[in-house]
């Protein structure tokens, strides 16, 4: 049988009457007259847990046997949130995103993205947000949202709540690079370290770097293709001519890459002079497109040191 009831209403179903009076269901079927036991299903055609609840089951009207049927159990997820709780992604970068909540029944963190049907971006020109996915479109900042109906409460006291959860999304622009650590820094000559040869000597420094965005935040993104150009400026006390720009690198999963600087000069090790150079790194994101020219790095080469932007 199918019946509509209003909020707060209740209805009784007397199976004995249905049997004895041969009441047909909506398809015209009747229950057998000799029926004395059966199972039944209670189904809410407009699911909204908590809105339809079986109150009591009277098994035998004569003897007054009454049992409390098993009530529908629910487990709520209060305060659902995005995982991750923020995005810093490059243009074209695609990252997964989930809505997670703590199950009130067992305190376990669970992915409840399936409860969310409306995924959107406040500014799709900056980032596109679709089901469980965020994609950078153009540099900038926006907010991603997911909306859905989420259970709140637990046991037999449960209600569904319309929930909107949001996440900040920064689409990063490769803007500069910074040193994360110095891996090696020492003098070189033909005897101690064979980069220089003959009577020339100089300095060698290897550093680990990462590309940073328009806000100075690290761009933790693998697969960035980096190349460089280096030009000699003034002063040029070490008599540098012809500057090889050998570098190409691909960032690892942490966004890191290495940069090795060296100078070999006949003026070293005696000279206290310096040669200034400028390095520009170009960054092509994994999604392709035009390269981003990072802010030039000021390199100072001396016989006893090599510094990058004063570091």
């Amino acid at each position, binding site marked *: 049988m199918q019946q509509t009831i209003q909020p707060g209403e209740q209805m009784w179903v007397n199976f004995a009457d249905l049997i004895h009076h041969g009441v047909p269901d909506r398809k015209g079927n009747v229950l057998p007259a000799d029926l004395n036991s059966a199972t039944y299903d209670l189904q809410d055609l407009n699911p909204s847990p908590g809105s339809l609840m079986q109150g009591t089951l009277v098994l035998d009207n004569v003897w007054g046997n009454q049992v409390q049927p098993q009530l529908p159990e629910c487990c709520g997820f209060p305060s659902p949130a995005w995982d991750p709780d923020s995005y810093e992604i490059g243009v074209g970068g695609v990252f997964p995103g989930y809505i997670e909540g703590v199950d009130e029944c067992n305190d376990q963190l669970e992915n409840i993205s399936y409860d969310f049907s409306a995924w959107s971006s406040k500014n799709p020109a900056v980032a596109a947000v679709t089901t469980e996915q965020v994609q950078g479109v153009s540099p900038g900042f926006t907010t991603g949202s997911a909306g859905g109906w989420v259970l709140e409460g637990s046991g037999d006291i449960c209600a569904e709540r319309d929930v909107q959860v949001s996440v900040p999304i920064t689409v990063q622009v490769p803007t500069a690079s910074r040193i994360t650590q110095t891996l090696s820094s020492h003098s070189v000559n033909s005897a101690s370290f064979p980069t220089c040869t*003959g009577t*020339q000597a100089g300095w060698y420094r290897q550093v680990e770097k990462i590309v940073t965005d328009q806000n100075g935040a690290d761009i933790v993104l693998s697969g960035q293709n980096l190349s460089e150009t280096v030009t000699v400026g003034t002063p040029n006390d070490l008599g540098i001519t012809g500057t090889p720009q050998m570098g190409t690198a691909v960032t690892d999963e942490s966004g890191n890459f290495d940069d090795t600087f060296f*100078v070999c000069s006949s003026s070293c090790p005696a000279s206290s002079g310096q040669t200034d150079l400028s390095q520009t790194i170009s960054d092509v994101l994994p999604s392709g497109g035009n390269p981003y020219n990072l802010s030039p790095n000021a390199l100072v080469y001396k016989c006893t040191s090599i510094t990058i932007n004063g570091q």
Partner: protein
Amino acid sequence: MASSEGPRFMKLKLILLVLACSALCTAQQHDEKPGEERELLVTQFSISGVPAIQGLLELSRSESVPLGIVVDGDRLCKTQVSYSGSNVPLSFVVKSIVGQVPGYSWERGQDSPVLLVTPVSVRPATEQFLNIVDHRYGPMKANLQTLALTLWVHIRYVLYPDQGTAGSILSSKDDREFELEARDATVRQILDRMAALAKGTWVLRPLPPTLAKLAGDLPFAIFSSFGQVGSDLGGLCSTEAEQPARK
């Protein structure tokens, strides 16, 4: 008598024969030069209407074989070549490709596994460059870029001892490193060693008429699955820029 000593004599001859064969075979193995090792069979390789230099680089990459290429003029870049074959020796494929480029030939290195593709008439500056002797290279363990750059620093020192060299080498964290040491080796020999280690190809770009006019840019490139050093394919046939006159 003869019948009783016969088997003993035959046995002695057999032992001598085995010993002789063993010694001969061992000697042959030891005398084998790198270039005379059993030649690689190219299972399947085909190119159609591509610049010869591109075809050679594809051959090196697909078969992981070391090649050396001396570019002079633009014939290697402008001559379109085609080849298709299977189960043929590597040298046959190289010969077939190079044979389509007027004025070019190939040779097998005497002390190297590298097959060299070179103009029939090599200019003096090119000869001079490839025969520059680096008295001490390494020992060093580094990625391909660093190995190549170190060689260039040394070459520059030989050519211009009063000029300094500075540089920057970007590299990936997972770059493959190779160990290389050479004493009194020519530039060609060291390039061959790098190509052999990286199973790639070294390419010498066209040089100016005299090495005194060689500019600071790297005149050679290395192509390998472990990385690329120097010019890309498009820049290989451009003449190496001459060093501006010093005031």
